[in-house]
Structure formats: C-alpha cells, structure tokens
C-alpha cells in the first residue's frame, strides 16, 4: 500500500483540470434624476456606478460556492479583471451595493430584510473557462435598481469627502436601509450606529440621504446630544440641542455636493419621489434666505447657512457660479477647519449646541481665526457673537446710565474680555435715575438665538432686589417684563441675566418706559 501512495497522488494531480483564466470587462451606470429647489428637473442622466463590488456567479450554484471571482468598478464605473475557472458553465455578473473590495470603504445599501441590492446581467450559458467576456455597459434604470445605486453613490461621495479631510474613510460600516415598498414615510438615522432608514420615495433625494448619513458622521466623530423627534425647517425657535445637529447635518451633507461640484450644491430639497418634474415637499437654499428666513442659532436652517458660508467660494456649484454670495460672505476656508472644531472642542462641550461650535472655532487649541469675517457671516443671520457696545457692564459699578423712554437698547449676552472671539457668560447692568411715585415698565423683547432673560430691579445699594421677572408671557416665553413704582427719587439698577437653559448667548432688546 505504501508503494501505491505516490502513484495515487500522481493520478490525483493528473485528474485535476488545469486552471484557465478569462477576463471579465465592461461598465456599469445608473440613471439619476437631477434636482434643484424646484424638485426634479424632469431629466434623466446616466452616472457611473463607482466602487461597487462585482461578482461573477455560477448561476447553478448557491451561496459562496456560486461566486467565481470578485472585483470592483473603478471611478468611471468600468472594470476589467481576471477570473480563474476550470469549467464550462452558466455564468452571470452582478454589481452589488456594497464596497468590500475597496480597502477601508465600508458602505452598504440594503433592503429592510438585510438583502443588498445588485444589478445583474442575463445568464451566459455554456461559458468556457478561457473565453473573455465584455459585458458591455449595464444600466440600472429608474425603478429597476437606479434608486439603490444612487443611494450607494451618495455614500461613496460622502466617504471620499471624509477621506479628503481626515485621511481615511469613515467607519464602521454605514448601512442605508431602503426599499421602494417598505412603508417608510420619513427618513431617519438610527442612533446606536450605523443605520440610516430611508423613506420609500427618497432614493433620489441626495441632500436627504447625505443629511441622514451626516448624522452617522456626527455620531461617530463629532458627538451630539440630539433629542431627536419631529422637527420643522419653519421652526425658528428650536431646542438648541436639536437645531445644531440637524443644521450641521444639512451643512455637511450639502458640503459633500459642494466638494465634488455636484449640481445645485446649495440646495436642500425633499421631494415626493413622484415621476416627472417638480414634486417638492420642502426645500431651502443654504446661501439665501428665500425659504425659512429665521434669525439666530435656534434654527437648523440658519445654522446650516452659517456653517456653509465660511467654506463655500466662487467656484461653488450654486445659483451664482463664479461669484461669492454677498458682502458678508468673504471666506473660502478648508473643510478641515470646521471638521477639527466639530471633532474637537465642540465634541467635548458639556452641552453641545451651536455655541459650542462658535467657541470651538476660536478655542486656543484650534484658533481658526478670521473673527471679523466670521462675525460678518453670523451677523447677517442674526447670530450676534459679539459684546454689545455697553460692555463691560457686569455690575452696578460698571453700569451704563440710561433714561426712561429712550430705548430700545440692543444688547447681547456675550462677553469677550480677551477679545479672542471665544465668549463668556454675560450679565448686563444699567442704572436709571427714577422719580419717586412714577410707574416704570421694563421689558425685554426681540429675543434671538438663545437669549432668555431674567430681569431684576436693584435698589440704590446695587444688591437689594426690589422686583424680578423671568418669563413675561409664561414658561415658554423667554422675555421678561416688570412694572414698578419708584419708591423714591433716586438711582436704581436694571440687571438682566441669562436665564438657565441650554445656552448662554443671544441678543435682545431692553426698553424702559413711563407714562
């Protein structure tokens, strides 16, 4: 028996069919439905399917045994790779909405049941192991795979954008869960990482896809304290901890479009997904207050605009290519400038709001600078991160004299003693010469951003509180009002403190009147 072993081994080798090689080549494209602020343009264009996994499949086998070779599409959607095979068989090729063949890129589009999507060729029967195949250009059309590959392409852009900033693709794997008939009426990001659930009809809403994907970036790299839930673009007085991550997600998602010069990079639009042109559910322009003209950083729309302006430029693919967008918008900074704020001091802030971003920009560890330009951008959006002209007036000793019926005085809760741009909590104190027996009404109004006043009247000694009011119109009203009769003719003080809430800054008006 021992003598027979070498012979059997030799027979075994002789029985194995020789490996043969053949080359699979071709290209893949998907149909896109371009959009702008009017919704769908009504046109269809073909774009390359980039960085998609490819598989050559034995049509008569299942599971891993069916896969004969794997590769990927290149930046033009094309491919050419060698397949080692031994048999004549029925084969087909498919492109998947996964990126396992691209080192470090971990993106996936899948149905709610976990199935990834693929575009496949027809079966190619009796394919010999040495026969090269050019599969031609395969097109995922609208309603037949185009949607899934459009979502995949947005994730690809997003991953590439992040790589340009931080040097590597984001991880772990982000999955966009989508189906045309899943019954999803709204897109959302599932915290706990890393799934985006997409509305059934949103697969061509690139800004929506990128917005929700940006929540994944927030979750992984920037941190956020988003209370989540229903929110509206039209709400100019949102919870600060919601407004910031939502506005930031719109800004970052559209920044992906800006970086790659995608059309209408300045437009966030949500559509019905209906066939044909139009179909806008809501939209806004990140460069112009044509929709939702909210002032202050309690608005996700205003935050998106404030974060957009310092980084966009004359070459941005917006409504005005070739020019910047207004006298306040003079900056064209690198995306890294904002990233390092979001990933640095804004991430570690105790309460993460847009105030964290502003302070982080000027934090000594970041020191992005451009204070005058940044203030110009933010002033234009009603975000006054600047001391008012009466500073310093923290105490009665520093108070400025005002007269009744003289206002309103436009003020900010923002102190910056060292002038570096990073703010501090602020209290505003004024003194007034009052006439005994006269009734004075003191009010705060026009509260913007996080202005939330607590109003006090102090006696002549500057310490005794004669009267105070927090919310003039009830709990949800941040303004304050007091009507007091001067106990004697003397000097009294009006102290306005920022009431306790998620932030410390904001702007407001103070007015003192008497009959």
């Amino acid at each position, binding site marked *: 028996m021992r003598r027979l072993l070498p012979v059997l081994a030799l027979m075994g080798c002789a029985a194995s069919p020789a490996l043969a090689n053949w080359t699979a080549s071709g290209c893949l494209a998907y149909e896109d439905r371009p959009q702008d602020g009017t919704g769908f343009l009504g046109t269809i264009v073909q774009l390359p399917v980039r960085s998609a996994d490819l598989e050559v499949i034995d049509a008569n086998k*299942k599971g891993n045994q069916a896969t004969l070779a794997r590769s990927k599409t290149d930046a033009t959607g094309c491919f050419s790779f060698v397949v080692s095979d031994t048999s004549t068989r029925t084969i087909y090729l*498919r492109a998947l909405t996964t990126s396992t063949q691209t080192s470090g890129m971990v993106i996936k589009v899948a*149905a709610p049941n*976990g*199935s*990834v*999507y*693929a*575009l*496949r*060729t*027809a079966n190619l029967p009796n394919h010999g192991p040495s026969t090269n195949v050019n*599969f*031609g*250009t*395969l*097109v*995922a*059309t609208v*309603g*037949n*795979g185009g949607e*899934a590959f459009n979502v995949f392409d947005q994730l690809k852009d997003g991953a590439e954008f992040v790589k340009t900033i931080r040097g590597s693709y984001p991880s772990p794997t982000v999955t966009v869960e989508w189906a045309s*008939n899943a019954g999803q*009426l*709204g*897109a*959302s*990001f*599932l*915290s*706990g990482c890393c799934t985006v659930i997409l509305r059934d*009809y949103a697969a061509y809403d690139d800004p*929506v896809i990128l*917005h929700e994907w940006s*929540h994944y970036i927030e979750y992984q790299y920037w941190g956020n304290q*988003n209370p*989540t*839930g*229903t929110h*509206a*673009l*039209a*709400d100019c007085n949102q919870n600060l901890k919601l407004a910031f*991550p*939502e506005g930031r997600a719109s800004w970052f998602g559209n920044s992906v479009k800006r970086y790659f010069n995608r059309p209408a990079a300045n437009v966030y639009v*949500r559509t*019905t*997904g*209906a*066939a*044909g042109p*139009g*179909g*806008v*559910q*809501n*939209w806004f322009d990140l460069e112009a207050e044509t929709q*939702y003209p909210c002032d202050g950083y309690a608005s*996700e729309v205003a935050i998106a605009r404030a974060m957009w302006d310092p980084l966009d430029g004359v070459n941005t693919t917006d409504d005005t290519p070739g020019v910047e967008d207004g006298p306040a918008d003079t900056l064209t900074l690198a995306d890294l400038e904002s990233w390092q704020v979001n990933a640095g001091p804004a991430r570690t802030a105790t309460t993460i709001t847009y105030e964290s971003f502003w302070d982080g920009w000027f934090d000594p560890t970041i020191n992005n600078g451009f204070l005058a330009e940044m203030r110009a951008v933010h002033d234009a959006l009603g975000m006054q991160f600047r001391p008012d002209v009466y500073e310093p007036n923290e105490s009665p000793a520093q108070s400025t004299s005002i007269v009744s019926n003289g206002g309103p005085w436009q003020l900010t809760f923002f102190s910056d003693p060292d002038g570096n741009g990073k703010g501090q909590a602020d209290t505003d104190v004024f003194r007034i010469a009052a006439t005994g027996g006269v009734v004075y009404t003191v009010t705060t109004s026009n509260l913007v951003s996080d202005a939330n006043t607590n109003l006090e009247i102090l006696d002549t000694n500057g310490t005794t509180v004669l009267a105070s009011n927090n919310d003039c119109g009830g709990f949800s009203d941040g303004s304050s009002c007091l009507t007091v009769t001067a106990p004697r003719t003397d000097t009294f003080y009006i102290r306005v403190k920022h009431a306790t809430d998620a932030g410390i800054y904001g702007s407001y008006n103070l007015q003192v009147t008497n009959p």
Partner: protein
Amino acid sequence: MRPVMVVAVCVCLSTTSFAREAMGALGLQVRPVDVTSSGKGAGGARIAVLLEAAVPIEHVRVSFLQSDGTPLTRATRPIDPGPLSWRRPGATDPEDSGDLSLAAGTVLQTTLQVPLPHKGSYEVVVRATGDGPDGPVTTEGMVRLDFGVSSITYVEKDGVAEFTAKEVRP
C-alpha cells in the same frame, strides 16, 4: 403546596432613537390604506392623508393630482376635496367643515377613495396649499398604488436582491 415557577419576563425597552427627516411649514404624508378590486378589471384604493402644521396655516386647500401634474379624476371629473372630512388623530368627531385652518402643531387626517380604472402601478400626488405667517405655503405628498401588478422588479437570490439590467449597450 405546589412549587410555583415564576417566569420573569424581561421587557427590554430599546434606547434607540431616530434623528428624523425635517418637515417644512406644512407637513403632508400620504399612505395607502387598502386596494380593492371592483370587478371588470377596475379597482379602487383608500389613501390616508395626514397634514401637520409647524406654523399657523390658514385657508388650507388640498388637491389630488397624477404624477404628471394633471388632476386626478373620478368619472372624468377632478376629485373634489370639498367633502373631505378631517379629523384629529384618535378623534371621532370631524373638524368643522368649511375653511380649513391649522394651528401650529396641529395634525389632521382624512381618508380618500381613489379610483384605479385598470391594472397598473399608480402614483397619486396630494398637494396642499395655505397661507402661513411668511406667505403662501405649498407642499406635496405621493403614494404609489399597485393594482394587480407588482412594482417590485428584483428577484432574491442568496440574500441579494437582483435587478436584471434591462439596458445593455455593447
């Protein structure tokens, strides 16, 4: 005394939360309720329409369209939204008929019967307009209704939903 087996049931509440897609001044959702056949190849569907106002919206008007923008018709006439009965979710009594206005935060819903004249895949577009604090407000919603056909064109194989490329250029 018989031993009693105590089964501890752990109800594990998910801490998962959702960062949701924003609505505009006026939110509009449309979803299918059911699709039925009425014989002779024709059918109908009930669709639920939900309106949600983020700001006060007055004089809300609703129209029903096909995806090409033409009016959705019943017996050749555009569907009249006038008789629609709007209710708050969970309420049994309808809102007062007439001029429809929504306070901020208000949600109203209604159900509409839509004709499906033949087998096919339909898109019904609902357009809502109104007057908001900053001017006119318009939004749309859409629902896709499959009657006697399937709009799903992929085939599942080994955990992969495969679309077969229809267009292949040499």
